[in-house]
């Protein structure tokens, strides 16, 4: 054990191994011969180029095209060419109180569903981290909700939420359908209903990434802690959490991005209703872009506003992630 420690981490506390490795070892490696240096460059190019080329082919055109359209008055189904209107679309959206309402709804939804998913997913991972008879099957079964098409999930949960012939209310103990909650028709409950379904479907995603992170934690860290008689809480806080954090943050990053873009579930469950109680930005975006309106210019502007917000939030996460990595 001591031997492994010293060979890998040059005497630093083990919990910092992973974090430090990236930077330290590069400097320590003796620069290889010139030929290999060149071939490394080739490898980098060969390995990265396909990804970049494909992404540029598939995404740069749409991105630039919609950026251009966001400054125009244009409808895709119209034969009139786009008319340049400058920032008008942006000022129109930003001065519309409905937009801020939609944005607040989206933020509330994202905060609730991502934080609940993180907690539930992490707890599930802690439950399933140590192997027991049938743990493989249980893990696969827990993953099943994630494997369903979001649009199908929404359709089915509508059936489940239905106070007349759904099974949720009877399971929760509401047997009289006249007094039981009307999940999707009650402005106070509808957003929670969407959050419940999202947490149900995507906690397994967080769980899987956490499991991967947990299984990467070297046993000897716990052994060392056990020898030091560290409390369970201490072990969790000083070993488990920091070690899982990088993958957990990736999971949270992707779930946050998805939550801000969430459309399928809201469309299938409430479509923004009742009234505008669950109207997220993406529902409004869909209404503008399609639904007989085809306000392509305006919807592109709204999409870019959403994009900027997501980029800002992602940047915060990535900074946190890098801080973790670099210790």
């Amino acid at each position, binding site marked *: 054990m001591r031997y492994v420690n010293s060979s890998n981490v040059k005497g630093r506390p083990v919990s910092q191994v992973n974090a430090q490795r990236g930077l330290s070892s590069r400097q320590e490696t003796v620069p290889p011969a010139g030929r290999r240096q060149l071939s490394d460059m080739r490898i980098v190019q060969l390995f990265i180029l*396909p990804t970049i*080329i494909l992404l540029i082919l598939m995404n740069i055109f749409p991105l630039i095209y919609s950026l251009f359209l966001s400054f125009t008055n244009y409808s*895709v*189904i*119209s*034969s009139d060419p786009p008319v340049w209107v400058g920032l008008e679309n942006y000022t129109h959206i930003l001065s519309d109180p409905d937009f801020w309402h939609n944005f607040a709804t989206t933020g509330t939804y994202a905060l609730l569903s991502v934080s609940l998913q993180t907690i539930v997913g992490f707890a599930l991972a802690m439950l399933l981290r140590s192997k027991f008879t049938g743990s493989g099957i249980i893990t696969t079964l827990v993953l099943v909700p994630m494997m369903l098409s979001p649009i199908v999930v929404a359709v089915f949960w*509508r059936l489940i*939420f*239905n*106070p*007349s*012939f*759904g099974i949720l209310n009877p399971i929760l103990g509401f047997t009289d*359908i*006249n007094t*039981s909650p*009307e999940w*999707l*028709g009650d*402005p106070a409950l509808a957003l929670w209903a969407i959050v419940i379904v999202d947490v149900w479907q995507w906690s397994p995603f967080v769980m899987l990434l956490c499991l991967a992170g947990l299984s990467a934690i070297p046993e000897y860290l716990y052994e060392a802690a056990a020898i030091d008689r560290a409390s369970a809480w201490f072990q969790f806080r000083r070993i488990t959490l920091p070690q899982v954090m990088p993958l957990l943050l990736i999971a949270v990053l992707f779930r946050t991005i998805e939550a801000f873009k969430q459309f399928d579930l809201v*469309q299938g469950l*409430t*479509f*923004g*209703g*009742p*009234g*505008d*109680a669950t109207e997220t930005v993406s529902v409004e975006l869909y*209404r503008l872009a*399609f*639904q*007989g*309106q*085809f*306000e392509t210019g305006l919807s592109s502007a709204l999409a870019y506003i959403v994009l900027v917000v997501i980029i800002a939030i992602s940047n915060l996460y990535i900074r946190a992630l890098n801080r973790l990595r670099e210790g």
Partner: protein
Amino acid sequence: MHKKSFLILALLGLLVLTLGAPAGAQGITELNIWWAEWDPANYLQQIGNDYEAATGIKVNVVQTPWGGYFDRVATEWAAQGTAFDMVVGDSQWLGQAITEGHYVDMTEFLTSTGIKDTVTPATLTYYGEYPSGSGSYYAYPTEGDANGWAYRKDLFENPDNMAAFEAEFGYPLAIPQTWEQLRDIAKFFTRPDEGLYGIGVYTQIDYDGITMGFQNPFFAYGGDWYDAEFNALGVVDTPETIAALELYKELYSYAPPGTNNAFFAEMNDVFVNGQAAMIMNYFAFFPALANPEINPFAESTGYFSMPAGPSGERYAALGGQGISINAYIDDARKQASFDFITWFATQEVQASWAALGGYTCNIAVLESPEFLAVAPFNAAFAETMTFVKDFSNIPEFGQLLAVVQQYLHAYVVGGEGTAEDAMTSIAEGMDEVLAEAGYVG
């Protein structure tokens, strides 16, 4: 290496596909018709198979789920695509499709062949004419449809119910003649303890559901979405229409729990599970209710058409679609499409269309005793098609609809504000859209 060859392969594939596309311009062997994914489209495929047997030209009815149907067709228009030769499109699309030139003008064709006179005038107006009253036609009415009612005869004709109803309301329990009577009956049959509710009404927020349902009393109470000069203010929000909205909300309070975002599918659901004494629905969805395997009450299910408003006016919200020809296909394909419609519009084919379950708009077939007798709801259907009325079909209908949908749903389901607030907000919102589009100063 293999990723390079993949890219080359992909590019090659692209090339082959682009070169391979424009082949076989003359000698049409195949026609593509687009429609939404539902049973009538399957019936149309049957008709198409008959056409293939008669002429050797294969007919493909390509189906897209309702939820994405309009988006799909509209993007095809945007690309000036030729994926379909004909499209069975909603009446509301006419404005957009015609002002942008996506549909072939069929006026000359429908007039010279005499097909124009074989269908009921109302269906030709709503499914084919744009702008209204212009005499220019762009579609052949294919699937006629409108809102009607299904009700439980066993409940209505039960002697105890009849006596109790008359004692409570002072007139006999029967098919309602007015919206007030409809409301009384709905109230009467709402017995939560027995798991029975009086009525099912549309409440869906997605696209046009709640608007379609509310339009029935709205028009009957003298409302309209705008007048001849496109004024919405003072036309949408009158005391009468506010009363109509209050009535609609009251009807919703007699509906089974859970019908807070309900449209045609949910209506049939609460009817076949015995929760609702009567439901509104499009006639296209009534065949299921006549089928004992789907509806346990099939034998005792009756149908009636829309009741009248305070001044005796009756209106039914229009559904249904007409078939139009894509303006972007070449002349040979256009001619082949005209040939198909000519054949499809013959009385003989329309009779078999009706026999399959399609809702024909052909006058002779509608009036034939066979048609009236073949299904229990056909009589109500034939009557309804004489007083149908549609939502706006101007190119901006989508924006108008979005305004109406949101405020109706917020008031009726969400319980926000008053009926007056809702109607005022709708009038103002519509006025804004119409003003921005340049209809009103």
